[in-house]
């Protein structure tokens, strides 16, 4: 057997070392930021923090939580994520179910499919989209963040492909028992599709939480920035001119430990859902690649 040869044994040791190092490189930057966020102010400025906090303190988190602008952004993010995921999932489930019908039963199906797929291939781009949102009067409203991404054609196709794997006999049996379309969807398709639903819901949640650019261009009122946009302006861009905050807050915000704490809080929800996400997304991706 090949794995008994000496050459392979040597390779195996190096392979393990290499892959473990690479996977640690994926996580160490985050750990470093976490360590900085828990360190004392002077230790962070003196650049002596590596992967373990120096002069452990929760001061930076205290300052972050005490900042009303941060909390407001956090709550607005939660609001947008919940509303956006709810609307988005409803749109995808309904359309995905209708489009999962065979061409024989639903002749308009292919026409609709091309109509939706075209939106993935060509778009008006940044400026026409921005002018549309302005003309619709959606600037500074939650709808500017929730409605445009409500139709993810990619996720809709994922959902549709999953529905198509459900045997037609189940639906026929329900039809004979007198169930209507909605009943079939809610009592047969959805319960069977739990793994796919979980995958797509988590993708949508993560997408909304991470989304920052729409907040930056559609929200003129900076108090309506979602957290990702807030972090973009305060931590990454360092554009304090956009934030209406008093000088004392400003000094706090620009501190390295406080910045690290804000970054970590921004990443925390993703880290919390990640175990659930990981359980499903591998299946979801393979599913998306499988076609009838």
């Amino acid at each position, binding site marked *: *057997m*090949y*794995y008994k040869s000496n*050459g*392979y044994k040597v*390779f195996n040791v190096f392979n*393990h070392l290499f*892959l473990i190092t690479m*996977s640690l490189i*994926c*996580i160490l*930057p*985050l750990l*470093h*930021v976490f360590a900085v966020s828990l360190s004392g102010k002077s230790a962070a400025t003196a650049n002596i923090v*590596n992967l373990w906090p120096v002069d452990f303190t929760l001061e930076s988190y205290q300052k972050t939580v005490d900042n009303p602008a941060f909390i407001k952004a956090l709550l607005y993010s939660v609001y947008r994520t919940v509303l956006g995921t709810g609307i988005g999932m*409803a*749109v995808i489930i*309904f*359309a995905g179910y209708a*489009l999962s*019908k065979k061409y024989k039963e*639903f002749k308009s199906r292919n026409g609709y499919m091309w*109509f*939706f*797929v075209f*939106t993935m*291939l*060509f*778009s*008006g*781009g*940044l*400026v*026409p989209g*921005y*002018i*549309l949102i302005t003309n*619709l009067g959606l600037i500074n409203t939650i709808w500017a963040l929730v*409605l445009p991404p*409500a*139709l993810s054609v990619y996720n*809709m*196709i994922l959902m549709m492909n999953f529905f198509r794997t459900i045997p037609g006999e189940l639906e026929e049996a329900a039809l004979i028992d007198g169930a*209507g*379309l909605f009943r079939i969807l809610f009592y047969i398709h959805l319960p069977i599709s739990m793994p796919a639903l979980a995958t797509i819901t988590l993708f949508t949640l993560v997408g909304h939480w*991470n*989304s*920052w*650019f729409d907040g930056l261009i559609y929200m003129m009122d900076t108090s309506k920035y979602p957290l990702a946009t807030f*972090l973009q302006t305060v931590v*990454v861009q360092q554009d304090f001119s956009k934030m209406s905050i008093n000088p004392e807050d400003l000094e706090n915000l620009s501190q390295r430990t406080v*910045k690290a704490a804000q*970054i970590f809080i921004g*990443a925390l929800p*993703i880290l919390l859902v990640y175990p659930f*996400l*990981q359980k499903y997304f591998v299946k979801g991706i*393979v599913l998306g*690649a499988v076609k009838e």
Partner: protein
Amino acid sequence: MRSGLSEPSAHTPAVRAESKWKRGFKKTWPLHVLILPALIIALVFHYLPIFGLVMAFQDYKPWLGFFKSDWVGFKHFQSLFMFDESVQVIWNTLIISVLKIVCGLFVPIVFALLLNEIRKSGIKRGIQTLVYLPHFLSWVILGGILIDLLSVKGGLVNRMLTDWFGSQPIFFLGDGDWFRFVVVVSDIWKEFGFGMIIYLAAITAVNPALYEAAEVDGATRLQQTINVTLPTMLPIIVVVATLQLGNVLNAGFDQIFNLYNPLVYDKGDVIDTYVYRSAMLKGDFSFATAVGLFKSIISFVLIIISYRMAYKFANYRIF
């Protein structure tokens, strides 16, 4: 279900076609209703802006609107190719995206093959858990982390370079060439794990009998990998590679926007960031739309070509 054959044949063809359509609609209208929300969103937020592209041929003024702004023909497209700045931006986009596509194609394949050699499923799963994670973090978070890590004044990376190798601190995000390097490497760092998933799935589909046969013929593990594993992965590699063609003008807006600064505009500014600054900071809506339209049309053609190629070579279909 009634079949179309029992249709009364007395009607003229036109009337029959209409009644057939009507009958079809009567049976399927609930399905149309289910699609309606998606249809409205696609129409309003995806199709309506396409009409807004006419402003690329106007001198659009927000207070005049589409109907009263002056028509200027291809003026903005001409300036796109005349300004040194915008030509440089197109080159930057091509250089960064091609580097990303080429490296981003090979790294996940190599990692999938190496990970496949790890037999202890616990270690394998642990590695997978860690390498998939960065994909789910946004470039705002990662940008914040990278800016801190790569800082000239005491960033962790520069501290390691000076302490361990005695080199001078490197201005990663302030020097154009280093900036490109950071953009390509950090993009691969974020995405290689996720890109690996599809190859790992392909590897599990290899028929074990093929390995056994190769073993009997005295093939080493490396020979088995080259002659058994890789050929099985080839169709999916071809699909991934061809579909990347549509990304040639996508250098990664989120990433570059969160990492760049005026110091590296000459080598790091790409089409999408240029469009953003032209429109949102300079208010030059029409020019920005023209640049965006130029990108959209080329990308559209490339995507169509890539789908055709993926279909031809690997029988891949979108739906």
